[in-house]
């Protein structure tokens, strides 16, 4: 069950809700009744991201074999009532927040996968530079030039989610919107943005983890020890 929840990511932090400590409890009865309780670092964490995580958790649990009933709920959040009712009714975000939202969250999710792609590109490029690649040559590299690593796999998954090329001949540095290769002249600014995006995500993760630790003494299900 936790392995399934590992697939649910905080869209902004780009990390599984399990390792972040957002899964308070996860209980499966012998008959296949699943009860998952989620928690967040603050009472006022953005409701749109919260909704995505609750809905995604509901979806991955429901898809497992031998599951009879599914009860996924967010706790200790100002919009928990609306989010939980909306997800349980499979109502979608707009219907759950009638009058307060007009679009579903696909666009928002895409925006953050784009950021994750940029941050992931920075991770891979730093490994290449550390291994001796000249920074000025990065624009000419393809995915085939990148040695296998967990970071490379992760980058390929983000590219696939955005419908972008993942084959060995595809350029490493690409515009996440169009998929076109970044030129050598455009590379310094692009790499600066990639580094900046990664810094933003990491700083947020740091703050969120610190706040969660203050809010809850108990370790979450599948939570990773803090480094």
């Amino acid at each position, binding site marked *: 069950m936790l392995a399934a929840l590992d697939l649910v990511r905080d869209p902004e932090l780009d990390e599984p809700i399990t390792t972040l400590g957002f899964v308070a409890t996860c209980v499966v009865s012998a008959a296949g009744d699943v009860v998952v309780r989620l928690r967040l670092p603050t009472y006022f964490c953005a409701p749109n991201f919260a909704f995505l995580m609750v809905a995604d958790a509901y979806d991955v649990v429901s898809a497992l074999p031998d599951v009879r009933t599914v009860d996924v709920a967010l706790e200790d959040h100002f919009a928990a009532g609306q989010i939980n009712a909306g997800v349980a009714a499979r109502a979608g975000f707009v219907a759950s927040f009638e009058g307060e939202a*007009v679009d579903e969250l696909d666009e928002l999710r895409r925006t953050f996968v784009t950021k994750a792609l940029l941050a992931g590109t920075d991770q891979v490029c730093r490994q290449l530079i550390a291994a001796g690649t000249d920074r000025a040559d990065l624009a000419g590299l393809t995915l085939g030039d990148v040695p296998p690593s967990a970071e490379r796999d992760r980058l390929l998954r983000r590219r696939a989610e955005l419908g972008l090329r993942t084959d060995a001949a595809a350029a490493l540095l690409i515009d996440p919107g169009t998929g076109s290769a970044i030129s050598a002249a455009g590379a310094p600014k692009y790499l600066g943005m990639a580094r*900046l995006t990664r810094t933003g995500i990491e700083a947020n993760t740091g*703050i969120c983890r610190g706040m969660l630790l203050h809010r809850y003494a108990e370790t979450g299900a599948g939570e990773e020890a803090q480094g």
Partner: protein
Amino acid sequence: MYEKNGEKYYVVDSHMHFWNAAPDNWVPGAEQYAKGWIECFHAYQSLAPKETHWTIEKFMKYSEDDLMKDVFEDGYVDVAVFQPTYLKEWYKEGFNTTERNAALGEKHPGMFVHNTRFDPRDGDPGLDDLKRNVDRYGSRGVKLYTAEWNSGSRGYKLTDPSAYRYLEKAQELGIKNIHVHKGPTIWPLDKDAFDVSDVDHAATDFPELNFIVEHVGLPRIEDFCFMATQEPNVYAGLSVVIGALMHARPRFFAKVMGELLFWVGEDKMTFGSDYGIWEPKWQIEGFVDWDFPEGDEFTDYPRLGVEGKKKILGLNAAKLYDLKVPDEYQLKEATPADPDDAKLVSS
């Protein structure tokens, strides 16, 4: 004033508060929000050194004496800028109003700058309030909280026509500095809650005003930096950056500082303690001692020296608020040149 290794730092705390979030101030029916809000703030305090943590009871309502001791007596601050946050949907008398701040500030002439606020959803009466506050308290700056709840609305954007009307009025009244806080749950909820593009537009359309983005747009530092690098009148308010990261997450702090120095620059960064979330003392001491850690990941970033720290801790904000800084705290290069030298160069 803070002194270390023979260097004297003039300190302007450009972002601090004097709030009342105790249960006696909670709006009946909205208690869960009032409580949730202050508990959320209190969680931020947990990111500071342990010996500076307060109990939740003290945190909800600290005294005038606490503030004067923590900020001025122990905290090295020369001038502190009150940044009000109203939240009247949750707190009966408001969380931290212009009036509450001024009642304290007026007892200590010269030590505080009294900023006020506005909310464009308040219509014509709000414009009258703004004028009254500027007349009464001499406000040169406003704090805007775009995510504030107001009569069923859960936020606004600076690009709303009503907001432009207020910005025009503020400018006419002599307001110079717009401190913008980007916070959670902006309406409509389906959009990115921390989007800073409205600041981008407003900064372009109001070039005479300065826009200080408090908390540097965290958690959207990348959007903020990219915008600030293109807008000469956009500043990075370091409240929360130092408080939440310097002690608890030093490597992330170094990276965020590096990015800010790279994209925004030391001339457009201002210190703010965000008191009472965090006390200024440890932040100022730690910041003056701070340098990048060892490691390849920090080599891209511009270095920050004593002069840069002097600008960030006080001189930049002193410029924004026309505060008179004694000569001994000025940068050495800022000493006026001998007029004879100037003649020689120009002839």
